[in-house]
């Protein structure tokens, strides 16, 4: 994979007029960005944000920002989200500088901790306010880490969703499923980092490398037009003689893709294929057909195909999709698109629209609304956001609840019983 990624970042992004920055937030985020950093690339700007001065010091990333000096005195947040959040707010000016002037910003964070959960939403907001396309990769804690971590991560995810154009959650529970039986928790973290790298590289490659089918930044923007919906993300890779079939199988088994709710509900889909010179248009077509079969009509798919000479006999497929619709209530779509405040400042009339289903909908809402961020939003945005949060309350874990999403949470002793038992117990399933 390393030679592939190396090539992906070789071209000059600036010449295309697209400025890309990857920001790692918190310990986990910084570590993930480090792995990208270790590959030879110059044109992509990497940045790290942390409250822990020591951890930041040891990172090889060029642009580092220590936030919340006045709050933490350079120490870690100790897992306190409030502190992480305050730290970011205190240093808002510095953060604003960091995100200023960028077209595409990737935010990488591990949710569940203090800095990642507290600061990442703030940075997303700032980035989004600067007009950049914001795509976030976040990891979600293991179930066995406990209910508190989960709640923190969930709340942060809800906040992130309302600010980013796309949020790709990577539940550690799921990632563990993809690994060998002997894998440790550390391996699982490393695996998460690898997934993040591959995702970011794939998106960048689409924009920068020339190939069979080219994509530009405007199309990318279009894919993520509907903000706040769920995002699906999947990778598949094939090598050897039958690389085509292998890649498709790999993609089909990708645990991130396999939350059944997703499969039918991608409203727009970005598919990027990276292959060697032996990748013909017929191969691309074959992949397209297979993907269209799984995700719906071809009209919704934006396709990019990149040729990389070093990739003979291999193909990597990356699928990123955005859903504007969740659940069984299509009218949510209207409300979901509404809070695109920074790009279209005038309020949409549909925001105020109340549907007769609202009453029914209330029945689902039993948990308190997350307390995130309301205080820090511009006043005029508050009502819209409230509606949003109501909808997102359960989104994050829904990815693992499948059939039971949109039903009341099934909490027993802090565990969500709708999430498969084997996942919660960390039982590895071989396929």
């Amino acid at each position: 994979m390393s030679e592939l990624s190396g090539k992906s970042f070789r071209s000059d992004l600036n010449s295309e007029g697209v400025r890309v920055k990857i920001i790692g937030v918190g310990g986990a985020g910084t570590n993930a960005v480090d792995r990208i950093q270790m590959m030879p690339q110059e044109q992509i700007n990497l940045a790290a944000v942390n409250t822990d001065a020591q951890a930041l010091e040891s990172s090889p990333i060029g642009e580092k920002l220590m936030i919340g000096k006045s709050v933490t005195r350079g120490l870690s947040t100790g897992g306190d989200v409030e502190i992480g959040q305050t730290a970011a707010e205190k240093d808002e000016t510095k953060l604003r500088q960091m995100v200023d002037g960028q077209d595409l910003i990737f935010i990488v964070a591990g949710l569940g901790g203090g800095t990642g959960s507290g600061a990442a939403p703030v940075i997303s907001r700032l980035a989004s306010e600067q007009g950049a396309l914001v795509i976030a990769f976040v990891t979600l804690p293991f179930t066995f880490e406990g209910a508190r971590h989960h709640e923190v991560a969930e709340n942060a995810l809800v906040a992130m969703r309302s600010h980013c154009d796309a949020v790709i959650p990577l539940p550690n529970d799921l990632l563990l499923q993809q690994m060998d039986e002997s894998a440790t928790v550390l391996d699982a973290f490393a695996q998460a980092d690898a997934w993040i790298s591959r995702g970011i590289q794939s998106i960048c490659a689409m924009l920068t490398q020339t190939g069979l089918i080219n994509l530009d930044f405007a199309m990318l923007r279009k894919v993520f037009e509907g903000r706040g919906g769920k995002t699906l993300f999947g990778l598949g890779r094939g090598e050897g003689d039958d690389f085509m079939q292998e890649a498709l199988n790999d993609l089909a088994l990708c645990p991130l893709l396999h939350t059944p709710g997703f499969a039918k509900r991608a409203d727009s889909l970005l598919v990027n294929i990276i292959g060697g010179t032996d990748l013909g248009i017929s191969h691309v077509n074959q992949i397209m057909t297979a993907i269209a079969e799984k995700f719906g009509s071809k009209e919704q798919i934006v396709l990019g195909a990149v040729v990389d000479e070093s990739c003979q006999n291999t193909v990597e497929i990356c699928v990123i999709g955005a859903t504007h619709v969740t659940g069984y209530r299509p009218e949510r779509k209207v409300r979901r698109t509404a809070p695109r405040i920074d790009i279209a400042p005038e309020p949409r009339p549909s925001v105020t629209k109340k549907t007769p289903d609202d009453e029914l909908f209330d029945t689902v809402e039993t948990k308190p609304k997350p307390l995130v961020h309301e205080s820090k939003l511009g006043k005029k945005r508050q009502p819209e956001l409230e509606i949003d949060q109501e909808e997102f309350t359960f989104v994050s874990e829904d990815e693992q609840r499948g059939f039971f999403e949109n039903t009341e949470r099934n909490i027993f002793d802090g565990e969500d019983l709708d999430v498969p038992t084997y996942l919660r117990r960390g039982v590895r399933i071989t396929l």
Partner: protein
Amino acid sequence: MSQSRIIGAVDIGAASVTVLVGDIVNGRSLNIIGKQDATSEGVKKGEIVDFKAVSNATHAAIMGAEKSAGAQIDSIYLTQTGSHLEGFYNSAAVNVSSSDSRVSEADIARAMSEAKAKKLSDDRLYIHHIRSHFLLDNRVSADPLGMQGEKLEVGYWSIHGDERKVRDHIHVINGFGLNVEDIILSSIASGTVIATEEEKRAGVMVIDMGAGVTDWAIYQNGIVARTGVLPVGSDHITNDLALGLRVNRKYAKKLKTSFGKAVLEQDDRQEKVWMVGDQMIGDRRIPKQSLIQIVRERVEEIYDLVKRQAGELCHEKFLPAGVVLTGGGSHLDQIDLAGEKILGVPIRRGELPSWVHDNLQRHEYTSALGLLHFALSGQSLDDSALQRKQRGLLRRVTQLFVN
């Protein structure tokens, strides 16, 4: 002239809506004259998530049942389940008032109403008050009237539910133009027919594993002592398989019914099964071990959670007759064995009584059959039966005029 009452027993489950039509002749004999199943829509974990869809499916089923019975249903008996149901035990003691220390009817009434007087919060409704035996000076007495003693004590296992959910449930039937004559907890409805009287006297636990929920009830001294609802059912097994094996729900269900098993055996470790079975493109081989592991984890967890819910009563000591399984989920291979080591009591799949016709001898029908049993016996679970009779008549009369 013989008098016949046409009763509809409606069990709205997560997998299907079952309607049985019973003809109760002279209040003495029951003929099951109609039956209809419809695929359920809009029910998850025993609760209504899509009112319109549930209404549609239920109404279609009742229509079909009426058609197959060739008769018009007079009133409906309905099962109730869902995680919103909760129960508590409340007892009250009164001093025997008369000078000769004989228990009078007034004493009994006073004790009973006091034990049931506990107020619920505004959005909760009582579903049942199930009375345990009277205690007269701490001696068990089935009928203390006229007996001598000083202190009369009585306790109830009271079950209450969320008002809105119960109302939704009833309104589904009302929407069809029928009235709900009685609501019976699913677990109790099932327990009535699946466990024998001897077992109930000795102490038995009935576990009804449905698609959406697992209902259970513990009988002591012939009476329901505890009930519970675990909002996990065989739908969860299907969902786990879909997520774990990366297959869609349809195949997950198919895999569950054809290869699903609650115990992993040595032979299963190497075996692989085909997902679709036609071995065409898109079909793939799935390790049987993985499949069973996913199922086993879930099944064991269900038993474990039931054990935790039931608390101390879920013990060998209180359950000499063991555990009787029923419900659609009980078809799963070796599900009885899987539970024994967790619950520590013998588990068996229940058998419906022999009066049940062959084509109704299915665990999916247990609850509905239990409802008809209640309709026939005419007894309500709680003491408010009298009050209901009057209302019923009044309602019928008013209905005449409304028509």
